[in-house]
């Protein structure tokens, strides 16, 4: 099957104070159409940079990214981004925001409105159609951000830690809603997170990245039917494997930031909350 997204030997280097920082190093992977893939890694590993590259907001220093065989060089409406902060336009209502992309594409006003209302309903915000972003909670804003991009029927949805700023309950709700939307619309999703539980709960495959310079350390195929139970022993075993591997990378980041070696979490011993990377026990 032809890949939908192909990342080939992508490197991204930045010049910083007369030194070169290598953020991404020889990243290579492919994503199939309709697949839900998670990019998992410690902070600073370049996952957001990778999302920007796939979106076309940035160019790789070397290597190439192809979508349906075509080179990615600039932003395109076939791949849309949901950011950690909703990035809604504050001067527009929920309706105005969801219509935005359609307006840019020149869709006529009546059709635009109808489509927007449909997607607002899909994210359960019909009551707030004419509200302004400042009147919405964080979770609601992210729903609008999701409706806004889905209304444009993109082939690919890029999500950069979209639920990172939300409380655990809202996060859980939105994860379920996202899976439902994914099933209905059959789009390809690239979801960035640092949360192991979130990654294994959502994705078909998890791409684990190293600390800077970011490389793909390991690819895990989750292979479990959805909805996935948190208590499923296969899932838990997978999470432990990922956690211990990821723990090494997190330790590297800590060492660099704090200048001292932080002990690695043991695979078998109970893991304290602050090192569970989201697996609140």
């Amino acid at each position, binding site marked *: 099957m032809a890949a939908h997204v192909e990342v080939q030997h992508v490197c991204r280097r930045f010049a910083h104070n007369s030194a070169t920082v290598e953020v991404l190093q020889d990243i290579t992977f492919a994503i199939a159409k309709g697949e839900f893939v998670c990019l998992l890694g410690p902070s600073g590993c370049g996952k957001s940079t990778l999302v920007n590259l796939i979106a076309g907001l940035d160019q790789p220093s070397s290597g190439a990214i192809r979508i349906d065989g075509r080179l990615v060089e600039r932003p395109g*409406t076939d791949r*849309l981004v949901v*950011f950690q*902060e909703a990035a809604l336009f*504050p001067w527009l209502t929920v309706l105005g925001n969801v219509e935005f992309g359609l307006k840019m594409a020149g869709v006529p006003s009546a059709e635009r409105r109808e489509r927007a209302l449909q997607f607002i309903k899909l994210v359960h915000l019909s009551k707030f159609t004419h509200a302004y972003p*400042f009147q919405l909670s964080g979770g609601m804003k992210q729903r609008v951000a999701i409706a806004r991009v889905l209304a444009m029927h993109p082939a690919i949805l890029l999500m950069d830690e979209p639920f990172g700023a939300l409380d655990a309950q809202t996060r859980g709700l939105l994860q379920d809603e996202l899976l439902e939307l994914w099933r209905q619309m059959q789009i390809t999703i690239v979801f960035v997170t640092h949360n192991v539980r979130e990654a294994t709960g959502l994705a078909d495959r998890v791409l684990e990245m190293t600390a800077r310079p970011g490389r793909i350390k390991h690819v895990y195929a989750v292979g479990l039917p959805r909805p996935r139970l948190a208590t499923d022993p296969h899932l838990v075993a997978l999470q432990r494997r990922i956690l211990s591997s990821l723990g090494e990378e997190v330790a590297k980041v800590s060492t660099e930031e704090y200048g001292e070696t932080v002990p690695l979490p043991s695979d078998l011993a109970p893991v304290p909350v602050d090192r569970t990377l989201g697996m609140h026990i």
Partner: protein
Amino acid sequence: MAVLGANFASGEFRTALAGSLRRMAIGYSLVMGLGVLGGLALGRFRVLDECLGSVAVAFHAIPGAAWVPLAMLWFGATEQAVIVTILLGATGIVIVETNAGIRHVPPLLVRAARTMGARGIKFFWHVVVPAAIPQIVNGLRLAWAFGWRALMAGELITAVPGLGQLLSGVAKVGRLDALVALMLLMAVIGMAVDGLIFQQLEQRVRLRWGLA
């Protein structure tokens, strides 16, 4: 106190006030129009900003009153001179603030808009300009204050019928009560417009734009 009241009630105050307000309305409308358009142009076209950006700042640095002699040279001691004074005294800040607003659109919004296909003119009118509105409103509010001051200075010097001219007149004949009353009136008008119109507007804009 009673004397102040009598002064306020008098016809001469009312005609002077009417004259000043009319001039302010004309002058300020021009300031708004030219200032915002100028600021948008400087914000949109880097070349223009590089050539003229500091000129706008320089204009703003010159107090309104200092423009009066020049205005009088061009137009004589007329209404036009006073209106031109307002223009020269207040447009600078509107241009500067509008330009700044255009240049400081939150990068996250720019990224979101670009991914959704906003480009060129559409991007400018549907994203950049709305994002700049809080700063434009701030500029318009400041311009009111500077414009009002320039108007008073203009009327004082050119003696065109208005509050400024009345002020100079009553001072010459020693009517101190009328003098104080006039200054109170100037202050009250300045504060009223600022508080009732601009601050309310700014508050609502900042709330909606998520800045308050």
